[in-house]
């Protein structure tokens, strides 16, 4: 312990990351619960009802954080995928595959809550708006990633194939986003504008930010739990997993 600098690379090995993740998970669950209760409390009890949208707008407290997370998790996933390809670390690939289901869940939640919000406000469950369409494509990309990894039996090959796909997807996301936007503006007038947010009351904004933080903490906790399971599954032939399992019996 004479060296004051923590050697971060130590945690790139599953053996040392496994207990660390185990210690961090309860903290992130706790934070998720606190932020979630606070955010929903503000959202449902303190925030005023919207002048135009009445009470229906309150779904924003789930909708917006879910959309943010779905996009951000894809970036994080691609980052880990790239790290795994570049440095050939085992943990990076596990991290990427642990994040994918959470990202897909948030993309789906974002579409679902969006539809629930759209029905009373715009009078329709779905419009081929640029944002809706690109979020749908993001969900397809997640599903493609998960399906590709599930179809390959060898975990190392699955990691690297998935990494290439995730990186190709990252390059494509801006292209898809802009193509969808241009296509839409050419076809139908902007009947629905999501970009012009009504100037939000401070209380609404706080509720939304707290909910976003809760979603962050939830994502981290769930991804860590999933990565722990993946670690055990993939490293089951190693001594440390055997020792760990023997200790539990």
């Amino acid at each position, binding site marked *: 312990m004479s060296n004051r600098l923590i050697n971060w690379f130590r945690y790139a090995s599953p053996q040392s990351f496994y207990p660390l993740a185990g210690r961090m998970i309860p903290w992130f669950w706790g934070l998720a619960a606190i932020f979630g209760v606070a955010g929903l409390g503000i959202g449902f009890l303190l925030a005023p009802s919207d002048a135009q949208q009445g009470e229906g707008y309150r779904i924003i407290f789930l909708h917006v954080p879910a959309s943010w997370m779905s996009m951000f998790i894809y970036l994080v996933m691609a980052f880990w995928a790239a790290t795994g390809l570049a440095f050939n670390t085992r943990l990076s690939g596990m991290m990427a595959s642990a994040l994918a289901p959470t990202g897909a869940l948030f993309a789906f939640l974002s579409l679902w809550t969006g539809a629930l919000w759209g029905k009373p406000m715009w009078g329709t469950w779905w419009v081929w708006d640029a944002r809706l369409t690109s979020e749908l494509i993001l969900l*397809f*990309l997640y599903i493609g990633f998960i399906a590709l990894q599930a179809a390959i039996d060898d975990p190392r090959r699955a990691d690297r194939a998935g990494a*290439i796909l995730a990186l190709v997807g990252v390059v494509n996301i801006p*292209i*898809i986003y802009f193509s969808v936007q241009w296509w839409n503006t050419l076809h139908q007038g902007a009947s629905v504008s999501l970009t012009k947010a009504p100037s939000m009351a401070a209380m609404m904004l706080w509720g939304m930010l707290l909910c976003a933080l809760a979603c962050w903490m939830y994502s981290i906790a769930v991804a860590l739990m999933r990565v722990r399971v993946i670690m055990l599954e993939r490293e089951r032939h190693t001594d440390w997993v055997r020792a760990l399992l023997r200790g539990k019996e």
Partner: protein
Amino acid sequence: MLSLIRAVIGRDLRLAMRRQADIVAATFFFIIVVSLFPLGVGPEPEQLRRMAPGVLWVAALLATMLSLPRLFADDHRDGTLEQLALAPQPLALIVLGKVIAHWLFAGLPLVLLAPVLGIQFDLAEDALAVLTLSLLIGTPALSGIGAIGAALTLGVRGGGVLLSLLVLPLYIPVLIFGAGAVDATVTGLGAQAHLSLLGALALGGVFFAPWPTAAALRVALE
């Protein structure tokens, strides 16, 4: 470098010509899918004219995708692909040659057929010309992007269905600009902008796609 690409194209074309049934099947798939739409939605000329660009483009995506698995599968099965990967020339260049060959026997027939099928949909002359031009510019991008998916699913369980799951979302920009070019012509906006973007996608796709494809092939060959 050019002689290498030319050699790969020549080889793949010769192999494709020895098995013309495959090309003919994919081409007829295109024709049949396009012909199904008037039967399904009814033969009103006004409606058909509006649908034509989208229908032809979607059918082109599907037909291209149908022929993608063969891009590497045969070479993988008889071990040629391993020899190609061991060659001193960069694998990406060989892939580029294979992509061009794939376009020549899978993309070009669609382009040549498009005007005939467009007439069935009662498209005007200028729209027909733009439709053919947009397919001519856009289909190379389909071959390029599709090669990535074909390499990723090489030798994978249920590869065909998986391939469509991976590749179709990535095809969306090509579809939008390709069909958009024809729509813009019909509505009198001019197709210039769409065709330029389509050209950019095709150049980018054909130029950059061989690298991830080569990386995916090396993963598959491990």
